[in-house]
């Protein structure tokens, strides 16, 4: 009853994007259909090599009008092998938004009908995964100048995970205190939580299974 974007239109648009992206070297893309809850959605999943990232990013922004950088996630996989030690996942959205026009001195809000959007205005979800090999200081090219929304996301990823961004202007600690020692990135797997090894805290929080010191001793 309510108007929403139709799945088939999204799927076609996603397929168009993929056909174009596949021409870039080092990029593999596919459309994945996920069903969660009661609705299906079509996502574009791209796996990119770190060297081709900027080229792919510029193509996404200019040609396919992917204008919204949602989130940048950095993951540390110490046990996944030397090729996939660090993973970066970028999430983008295509919103299909333009500034509303000014008609006769008043701004006319754009009320677009979601069932009738076409071409580069169909909303899409895009996920880009980049794997970096095992190293002490992983680095990737920054996309701060392409999407301004990536700015603070990159700062946070460096702050918490430790992945550096080459070409990022004004990198600083954004969530941890400024005096945190350089090189401390808590989301790396070698840093454990406080009380991590206190298993009895989870297994037996109230102490019901605890027995006296001299249990089993013959008295």
């Amino acid at each position, binding site marked *: 009853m309510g*108007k*929403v974007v139709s799945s088939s239109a999204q799927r076609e648009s996603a397929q168009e994007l993929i056909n174009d992206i596949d021409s870039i070297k080092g990029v593999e893309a596919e459309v994945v259909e996920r069903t*969660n*809850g009661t609705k299906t959605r079509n996502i574009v999943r791209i796996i990119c090599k770190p060297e081709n990232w900027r080229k792919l990013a510029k193509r996404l922004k200019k040609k396919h009008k992917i204008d919204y950088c949602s989130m940048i996630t950095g993951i540390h996989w110490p046990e996944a092998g030397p090729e996939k030690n660090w993973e970066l996942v970028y999430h983008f*959205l295509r919103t299909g938004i333009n500034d509303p026009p000014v008609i006769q001195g*008043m701004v006319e809000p754009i009320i677009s009908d979601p069932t009738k959007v076409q071409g580069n205005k169909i909303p899409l979800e895009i996920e880009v995964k980049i794997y970096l090999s095992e190293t002490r200081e992983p680095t990737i090219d920054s996309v701060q100048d392409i999407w301004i*929304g990536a700015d*603070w996301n990159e700062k946070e990823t460096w702050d*918490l995970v430790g992945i550096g961004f080459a070409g990022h202007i004004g990198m600083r600690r954004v*969530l941890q205190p400024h005096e945190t020692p350089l090189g401390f990135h808590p989301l790396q797997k070698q840093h454990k939580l406080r009380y991590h090894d206190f298993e009895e805290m989870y297994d037996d929080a109230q102490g019901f299974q605890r027995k006296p010191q001299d249990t089993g001793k013959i008295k």
Partner: protein
Amino acid sequence: MAEMWISMGPQHPMTHGLWTLKVKVDGETVVDTEPDLGYIHRGVEKICESRDFTQITTYCDRLCYASANTWSHSYIYAVEDLLEVEVPERAEYIRLIAVELQRIASHLMWLGAYAPDIGNLTIMVWGLREREMMMDLLQELGGSRMHYNFPRVGGVKRDLPHGFAQRARAKVSLFLNRIQEYEALYDESTIFLIRTQGVGYSKPEEMVNHGVSGPNLRAGGVNYDVRQAHPYSVYHELDWEPPVERPSIKGADCYDRYRVRIEEMRTSANLILEALDRIPGGADTYHEPGDPMILGKSPSRAPEGTSGFHHFEDSRGESMFYIAGGGEGRGKQPYRVSIRSPIFITIPYAAKCMIGHKVADIPAIMGSFDPCIGETDR
């Protein structure tokens, strides 16, 4: 004229949360700003790596404490994407009712906190009074006044209690009448109009480039709503339109953002009333907790290599969870939970909007973007 940096430090009655905004002023005009976050950074993403999927819901409630339900539902949708779970339709309707009630409560908290910054202290009492009404309804659903821990993987924790539908209809209809009182108080107050109109301009394309979404974006005159663009839950079965506001020529100002939120409260109230009419199984039937009508079957382990994410329309914008499976306990715990907070991206943008205005406009602009620092600092 000498320029100097002033720090509107962490303890400040008008910053709506614990963060520092350093402003560089030239006389009374703001020349540069620098926000400083991280005063309540709890490391939730790290803690989640050693908790089961059901235990993390309690942490997600406490991310943005003003709108707890929207965050825990956002997380649960991402888990359901990861584990590929089917959710029964009645559970989706109950979730929709909980989320929209929470959206109204969150906007009321914003309303109650925004007006005292401008100088209108009456609205604080009125906004919190209405919020108590919504919190009563949420307390019936979830069990506590804040932090309900309401959704479960595959459904909800409990069905609508006996008599809830009748009380909800009465309270929400009463609230729809009361919104007119708020509008009257605000729109006829010259001081409020002077302080919020013409202040803090923002244009949609710029906002989208920065990553701003939600009511702040819809105030710019575009009807982008994640519930319509990337539909989830049962929003496609209800008859509604996201509220859009006609901005001024230079962009959306604080007054437009305020108007969008008032309209959003109306939209949410109408959504609740409609959902109560259309819920499958009727709003007056009660199913025991764990009944397949309200809780679907779900696996409890996510093997390595799987991942799930979900975009969700939070009261403040587009929130997102990305969960990578394959953690401890052979997949019972996530390997990495990554949280996208809309306000984390909006605060630098709001800080840019302040440049060029006077120091006295800072609370008006800051408050109109509705910051909630709990979700920013995670």
